[in-house]
């Protein structure tokens, strides 16, 4: 059985997957399983060629997918109907925000099964922020408050080489659409209207939300397109804050003497929003090992494995029992994330959402390059969004939401 996954633990991903596979093989020695790690970009492209494999091209049995790819894979005929494979399969104990992303829209047929999820939040070094603010949690409630703190931190650490107030958590070291989502939602807007018939990408609120995020790089508060190894981290003292979807508390706790606080992502508009991103597992319809793949899914969703794996990759379990066990095991985790979870939003499970993300990702990549080369203007960003809106309208017209 071949499993295609993403590098969820960055450079440590292979080690983490090797550990997970070792546990699986202990429980199911009869199943031969191997893992291939692909970046999200590569995996996205492969989702469109998987159905027509070229000569000698590997066909996966199980695929890790972001939750909002489910309906696309159903439409393509790539994802197997899990309810057919096992009619007893249920999502009853799955956390409710994740459920609707597992079905073929409009049906109760399960096409992908939740594995884990993450939530965006702002982590900050208490010792650093104490130097510039007497009430950091209060100041960090708004985006302007965050920008003021960034400015103050930069001034305070002006003698520290290569210091940035915010550590860039994006693996590509660029502007990330997933990190921008809380800013956009907090501005009171979204990709699409609530009935999913029109796009809001060209609206002022959307543009403002994206601008707020871009400002972090534009004002040099957050490094972009820099050699990762050359950049300091919060732990090394070369950064003070990080907007991340990894909950990270255990990492920070491991560093003796360094207290890291976690708060909701500052609100660009009326209220703060967090991005809840689920990771699901889908079985390839062309697979010759569908029952083995299903066994792996059931293994990964066992409560003990949910807790263990979530701990390994700094994410959250997707099922109620495991989630409660995980979150109640740390009072800090419980108090921090209860509030953030309440404000969490997610991307809808629509066929075109992945395509919209690709369109906007490209705009952010162009913006990042323009910022580094000192030729970025907000007007160029707005223009790119206007063009994107037309493309999205076309996508909507051919896909009916």
């Amino acid at each position, binding site marked *: 059985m071949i499993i295609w996954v993403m*590098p969820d633990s960055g*450079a440590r*991903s*292979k080690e983490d997957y090797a550990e997970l596979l070792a546990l699986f093989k202990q429980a199911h020695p009869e199943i031969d399983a191997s893992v291939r*790690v*692909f*970046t*999200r*970009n*590569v995996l*996205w*492209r492969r*989702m*469109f*060629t998987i*159905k*027509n494999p*070229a000569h*000698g091209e590997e066909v996966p049995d199980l695929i890790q997918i972001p939750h909002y790819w489910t309906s*696309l894979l159903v*439409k*393509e*005929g790539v994802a197997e109907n899990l309810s057919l494979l096992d009619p007893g399969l249920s999502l009853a104990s799955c956390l409710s925000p994740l459920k609707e992303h597992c079905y073929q829209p409009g049906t109760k047929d399960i096409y992908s099964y939740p594995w884990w999820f993450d939530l965006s939040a702002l982590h900050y070094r208490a010792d650093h922020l104490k130097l510039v603010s007497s009430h950091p949690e209060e100041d960090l409630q708004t985006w302007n408050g965050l920008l003021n703190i960034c400015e103050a931190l930069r001034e305070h650490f002006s003698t520290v080489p*290569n210091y940035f107030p915010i550590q860039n958590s994006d*693996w*590509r*070291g*660029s502007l990330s659409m997933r990190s921008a989502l809380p800013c956009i939602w907090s501005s009171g807007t979204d990709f699409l209207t609530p009935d999913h018939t029109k796009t809001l990408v060209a609206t002022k609120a959307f543009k403002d939300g994206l601008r707020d995020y871009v400002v972090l790089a534009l004002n040099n508060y957050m490094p*972009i*397109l*820099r*050699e*990762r*190894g*050359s950049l300091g981290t919060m732990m090394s003292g070369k950064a003070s804050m990080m907007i991340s979807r990894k909950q990270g508390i255990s990492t920070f706790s491991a560093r003796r003497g360094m207290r890291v606080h976690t708060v909701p992502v500052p609100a660009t508009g009326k209220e703060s929003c967090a991005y809840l991103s689920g990771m699901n597992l889908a079985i390839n319809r062309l697979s010759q090992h569908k029952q083995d793949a299903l066994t792996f899914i059931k293994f990964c969703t066992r409560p003990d494995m949910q807790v263990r794996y979530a701990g390994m990759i700094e994410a959250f379990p997707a099922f109620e029992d495991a989630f409660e066990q995980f979150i109640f095991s740390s009072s800090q985790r419980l108090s921090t994330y209860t509030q953030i979870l309440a404000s969490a939003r997610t991307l809808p499970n629509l*066929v*075109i959402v*992945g*395509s919209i993300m*690709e*369109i906007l990702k*490209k705009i952010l*990549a162009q913006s*990042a*390059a323009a910022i*580094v*080369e000192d030729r970025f203007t907000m007007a160029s960003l707005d223009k790119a969004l206007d063009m994107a809106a*037309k*493309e999205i309208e*076309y*996508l909507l*017209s*051919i896909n009916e939401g």
Partner: protein
Amino acid sequence: MFDKKSYTLYKFHKHLNQSFQNKRELLECALPALRDLFKLDRVYFFDWRKDRSLLSLKMMCKKEYCMDMQEDISVANEPAFLRALVHNGVAETTDLSYPALYLLLQWERPSVELRNGEIHTFMQEKVGVLRLERFRKNRLFSDTEIDMIKALGQEISHNLRNTEIDQAQNQRLNVSTALNDLSTIFASSLRLNDGLELILQGVQRYFRFDRVRLFLTDAEGKKIRTVLGVGLSGTVTHQESNQVSAEEAQIFKEVFNSSATYRAVRSVLYIPLKVQRNKVGVLTFDNIFSRRQIGYLDFISLQQFASQMALTIDNARLFERVQELSNYDELTKLPVRRYFNEKFAEEIYRSKRFDLPLSLIIMDIDWFKQINDTYGHQIGDWALQKVSQTLRSCLRQTDVPCRFGGDEMMIMLPRTNGEEAKVIARRLKEKIGAIVVPDRDGNPPRRLSISQGISTYPQDGETENSLLEKADKALYVVKARGRGDFALYRDVAEEAETLQPRENDKKEETEK
């Protein structure tokens, strides 16, 4: 004897001396070898985008394995680093706290000495950048090591370049095989539409587009008639012209009216299908969902294929038109006898195979010769047209009428027994009986009437000839009884077998 450098180079060369399917396979072989040779902690491979001074991380190699990675590093603001990298082929990092070396992987053709003694390098291409890191022991790279790394880098560059060339050649081969396969589909398809559906599915499968669509024009090449499409699901969809959005219809017009060989609107490519001035349709393809770029080779190949496709569609349409003309009677627009006979034989075969009834009606217009003589041939033709129109409007889709000759017509009624055939015959009698011949010269108004003879498979006969014969005999019975009616053979069999065609009928037959 080899010195150490030559020996290492030789070993490395031998290590890479194999066929790699793609860059990834090659790097998975080369990077670990480098790591082991120089006791590196990590080796990274970047794509080099010179136009944007961007290093785009593709793969990382550490410990025992390699892994896909993604990271973009802009070196636009580091002119010293860039200069060193481009001119020396190596550059040390300016801001890492541990030893790390960037190596430009550059492919070049062997230099050539010109007549004037100048040494000239004709082709040079940058194929990527490696970053070699030693962060555990902070051991610096010595000059000897850097020399060796550069030499091995050249070996990797050449292999990368060769692999790219192999890949491109394989891709070309795949494309030409695909196009060849697609071309043969046309030849093996009986109907144009079946062929087109297979072609579109094939184009999507081979070229892996998200959508492939074919807009076909009407016979005049002015309007969209239909749109065939294959989407993400791989199934073929049909759209009528009224289902095409106004925006797309406008694009279609513009593509046709322009002399350009293609048009890109948003992420969709439109290629007009024209044969000389004849506009056949538009082929469009896109990666609208995946947002993947369409390769240049794919585009060019499809453009060439499109002209072949246009020609084939045009030929097929012409063939269909010719077939239509030869199968249908010009005056009545009913199928001709030859076409009817083919269909009749097919239907008898089907009825035998699946044990189904089948009926045949032979009819002619009563006193047709008199109508011609009294009202003129134009009215005679008009009568034939009115009768054939009535036949077409009264019959079912599956029924096949035909003009057998003169005023004689036949109707094949598949899956119809004798009693059902009589119902149809009655309906025809009433409808045609209501047609009044136009009076131009003060002649008395006259209604048309028809006589019909019916035979049924299998009761009356099991072959085409026997059914024709029985229906014909039933028709003579009707005529003998005074015309304007219908009869099923088995109802009048006794009378039909004793009756000889009347003299005046024979005479009329010969005059037709």
